[in-house]
Structures are given as structure tokens and as C-alpha cells.
């Protein structure tokens, strides 16, 4: 009895320590973001929102935010437009070489981003598409399409194909069936695939580092370059703001989907 209580206490201590280790950098970033020093120090001595004001005053961050936002939106749209038909073919049709094609669509996940970044630099530099929006969008497309194919395929598998067959039997064409039956059924998977693609593109650092230059600098690259030469609390504040933003996006999508689902069932 005593031994088991002791081991249970020991287990709690170990787990608490491990969780603290896991969350340590986030906690520190949060604490530092409110410090009033112009350099990083510990422990913080005053409370201020100056660092947050600096984020909005920093032109590199503002421009980076815009570049990343536009790139991520365009990448997500393209990834959905190319990924959804592929997922449809992979789950609803039988054709020769299907498993090979499926493997091909997931294979970009196996290639390290440092190699993909170099590869994209080699192919985009001569065109020349490096340091442009289009270059960034193309560079991010290959690594986001697999996620869209995967999430959309998962929801296609769980959607009942008999509803589609019924529509076809009743005379609906292929496109009408997709638009009226399949699409509503896979909407949650479609949205989460799009959101994942957006967040991945917005956060992509290593590939962007290779294909961006002086003019089109996405936010993670701007932050990386800033952190390398300076360490002041504004990067901490920026990180906190970005976390808030991604939480808001995830919650909004969850809410939106949940709301739509309850409306449909009601």
C-alpha cells in the first residue's frame, strides 16, 4: 500500500518534470514577451507591452506576414484543387497501378526539407522564379498536396458511396453527383486539409529559406534572420501572437464545421 502510493507519487513527479521540459520554451517565450528590457534577460524585471508594439512597428515582420499569408492562402487553394480530384480517383476508382500512385502522392513526406529546398532552388533559379510569390507557392505545393490527399481520402473512405451510386442511378452526371452529394459529405475533411496546408505553408522555414531572397521574404525566414543577429523580446511577442492566431484559426474552423454539422442534422 505504502509502496504503491510512493511509486505513484514518483510517477507524478516524473511526469510533471517531463511536461515542464516539453513546455519550457513556450513558457519562457510567453514570460519574455512582457519584459521591458531591450535584450533578453532572466528573470524579467518589469511588465510592458512594448515588445508587442515593436512587432507591429517592424517592417520586416509586417511584410513577412503579408508574404506568408498570401503564399499560404494560394498554396492551400492550389493544394485543394489538385489534391481533391486525386483523392477522389484513389478512393472511388479502381485502376491499374493505384497503389503505386497512392505511394507517389505520399512520398514527398519522406524527403527531408533541406534536400527539397535545394532541389527547388536548382530548378527555380534558372527560370528565374526564386524570390517571387510564384516560386514560394510552387515550392510549398509539393509538401502540402500529400496532406490534402490524405485528409480528403480519409473522409471519402468514411462517406457512404451508395449515396453517390443512388444519384448516378437517378440520372445525375458525374460532376453533379460530386457537387451535390460527395462534396457536402467530405466538407470537414476538405476544410481540415485546406487548413493544414495553410498552416504548413505559413510555417515553412527551410524550403522558403532556399527559394526566397531579398524581396519576397516570408515571416519564418524574416524571424530566423532576426533571431540570428539580435535577441530582444519582440520575437517572443511575435511568437505569442502567431500562436494565438493559429489557435483562433483552428477554433474557428472547428466551430464553423460543428455549426454546419448541427444545422444539417437539425
Amino acid at each position: 500500500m505504502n509502496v504503491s502510493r510512493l511509486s505513484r507519487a514518483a510517477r507524478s513527479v516524473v511526469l510533471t518534470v517531463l511536461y515542464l521540459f516539453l513546455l519550457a520554451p513556450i513558457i519562457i517565450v510567453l514570460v519574455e514577451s512582457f519584459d521591458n528590457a531591450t535584450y533578453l534577460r532572466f528573470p524579467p524585471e518589469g511588465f510592458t507591452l512594448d515588445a508587442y508594439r515593436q512587432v507591429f512597428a517592424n517592417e520586416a515582420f509586417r511584410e513577412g506576414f503579408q508574404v506568408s499569408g498570401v503564399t499560404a492562402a494560394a498554396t492551400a487553394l492550389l493544394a485543394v484543387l489538385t489534391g481533391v480530384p486525386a483523392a477522389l480517383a484513389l478512393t472511388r476508382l479502381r485502376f491499374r497501378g493505384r497503389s503505386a500512385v497512392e505511394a507517389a502522392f505520399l512520398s514527398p513526406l519522406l524527403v527531408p526539407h533541406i534536400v527539397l529546398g535545394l532541389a527547388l532552388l536548382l530548378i527555380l533559379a534558372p527560370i528565374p522564379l526564386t524570390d517571387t510569390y510564384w516560386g514560394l507557392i510552387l515550392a510549398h505545393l509539393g509538401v502540402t498536396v500529400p496532406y490534402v490527399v490524405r485528409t480528403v481520402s480519409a473522409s471519402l473512405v468514411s462517406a457512404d458511396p451508395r449515396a453517390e451510386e443512388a444519384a448516378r442511378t437517378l440520372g445525375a452526371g458525374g460532376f453533379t453527383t460530386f457537387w451535390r452529394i460527395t462534396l457536402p459529405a467530405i466538407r470537414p475533411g476538405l476544410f481540415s486539409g485546406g487548413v493544414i496546408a495553410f498552416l504548413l505553408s505559413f510555417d515553412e522555414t527551410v524550403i522558403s529559406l532556399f527559394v526566397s531572397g531579398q524581396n519576397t521574404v516570408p515571416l519564418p525566414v524574416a524571424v530566423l534572420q532576426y533571431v540570428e543577429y539580435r535577441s530582444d523580446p519582440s520575437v517572443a511577442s511575435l511568437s505569442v501572437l502567431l500562436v494565438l492566431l493559429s489557435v483562433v484559426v483552428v477554433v474557428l474552423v472547428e466551430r464553423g464545421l460543428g455549426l454546419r454539422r448541427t444545422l444539417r442534422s437539425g
Partner: protein
Amino acid sequence: MTADSPDPAHARTPPDPPASAGTPESPGPAATPGSGGAPHPSAAGPAPAATRRRSPGRVAFALLLPGLLALLLTYALPLVWVLRMSLNEAEDGGVIRQTLSVATFTHVLGSSHYWNVIGQTLELGVLVTLCTLVVSYPVALFLARTTSRWRSLLVALAVAPLLISSVARTFGWMAILGTQGVVNKTLDGLGLTDTPLHLANNLTGVVIASTEIYMPFAILAMISGFGRLDPALEHAAAALGAPRRTVFRRIVLPLTLPGVLTAALLVFVLSLSGYVTPRLIGGGRVFVLATEIYDEAITALNWPVAAVLSVLLLAVFGVVISLYLWAQKALEARFTGPGEARS
């Protein structure tokens, strides 16, 4: 596209029916009343009949085309370009001589500098993988077994760091490990150290930060690989008198090994190619393949060497993944046992 496709589609119809008939009728008995109620000469007309008879391979190709094009342009072709570039030679001043030779390979493999880089990359990968497994296993085991009502919150907390960019988390570690960082300030304040510990700008710091950065991946991989873990087995062993340590060694550890193996592969592969943390925490003193590829490509403008290093990294990946598949097969064989496999 729709205009010209029906014709060849009709031409190809005869050999196809078995394949295309199999798809709609896959639900089996459930489909029988449907096909009985709507036989071939139904009022549905020629339009759906035509679309249905179109070869599935052709439809599949049309649907796959945009995605395959995207993959070809943004992934397959660039990788081929890397292979091609690795066979070129670099001359002074960033000039690249187009040839087909292995001169750059022999240059890289003959240089002790690059061997040091490869060695440090592997050393970092092994250290990070071991540390990450050790700190992730207790958390994953707890999350997989707990019935606490806080479970979903605790899972969310364990995975939440994935929402935060690794640049920001590495920045947090710089603030913790630096000479003016949290650890050294605390130790100094307590009077435990006179000179600050060197936790940043070296391999130690990179290992500590990378361990934390890959922890959520390892926890996720472990939890999803712990499917065989069944509390009933543990209870049975304990009821039969096995001490806790024996239960862990004989029941829990073997059943969780597949998950641990997957997590190990994931973390090892991620840390072999990690760039942000070695660059920022390493402070220019830790040379791994990823930082070397970037420096050769962007700073030295030596694309052939960067391509050769990339090919070497991919080769290491291939070896690691084959080792993983082999180990997985060996584990599976142990679970199913030779007797079951034969029957």
C-alpha cells in the same frame, strides 16, 4: 476533353466491363435490389450510361492529372535535378561545369571535413533519438493507459508545441540555455556555479533543444503504436504473482516496442535533416549535413557539392528506413510466431 473522350472510350469498352462492373457492385447484396430496380434499359437515358461506360482508367487519369503534374513540377523533377547537379563539377567563382562525372563525389568523400560533418550528423541523430525516446516513453505510456478525465487536455498539452513554429521554440531554448539564460542565471543566483555552463553554441545545446522539439512527434507516434497494450494482460500477470518490474519487462515493454521503433525512426530521420535548431543553437559551431548543404548552396554557391551532400543524406535515409522495415518485420514475426505463420 469530354468531347473527344467518349469515342476511344467506347473502343476500349469490351475488355473493361469486368473491372468497371466490380466497382459499383462492391457493396454486394445491398446493391442487388438497386440493380434489379434499375435495369439497363431504364429511363435514365444515354447520358449516364455513357459516363458509366467510360473506362475507369481514363477517368482516373483525368482526375489524377492535376495532382500528378503538381508533384512532378514541385517534387519529382527538382529531385532529378539534384541528382544531375551532383554529377557536375564546380569551378572557381561559382561557375558550374556541365559534365557527367563522379569527381564531386570523390572530392567530398575524400575530404576529412565532410566526413566530420557526416559523423557529427549521425552523432547528433543518435543522441537526440535516445534522449527523445527516454523522455517521451513515460509520457506516452501514461497517456495511452490513463483513464483520467484530464486525458484529452494532457494529450493536447503534449501535442500543442507542434502548433508553434520550431523557430520560436528554438528561440525559447536560446533564452534558456545561453550564458545569460535561465539555467545559468538560476545556478549563478543560487551560488552553485562560478563560471556559466556552456549549454549553447555547442552540440549539448543542440541535443537538448532538439529533444524537446521532436518530443511531440515521438509521443504521437508511440501512442498510435501502443495498440497492442492491454491492461487485462498486466492485471493477469500481476494476479499470477509477477512483480511490477517483471510485468513491465515481460508484458509492457515487448508490447510497446513497435510504437517505440516507429518513434525512433521518425525522430532519427527528422534530426538527421534538421536545420533550424543546429543553426541557431549551434551558433555556427555545429556542422551537420543540413547546415553544410545550405552553406554550400547559398553562401559558397557550390551547387554540385550541395547536391552531393543531399544525395548522401538521402542515401543515409534509405539505409535507415530499410533497417526500420527489417526490424519491424522481425518484431512482427516474434508477435505472430512461426507456428501461427505456418498454419
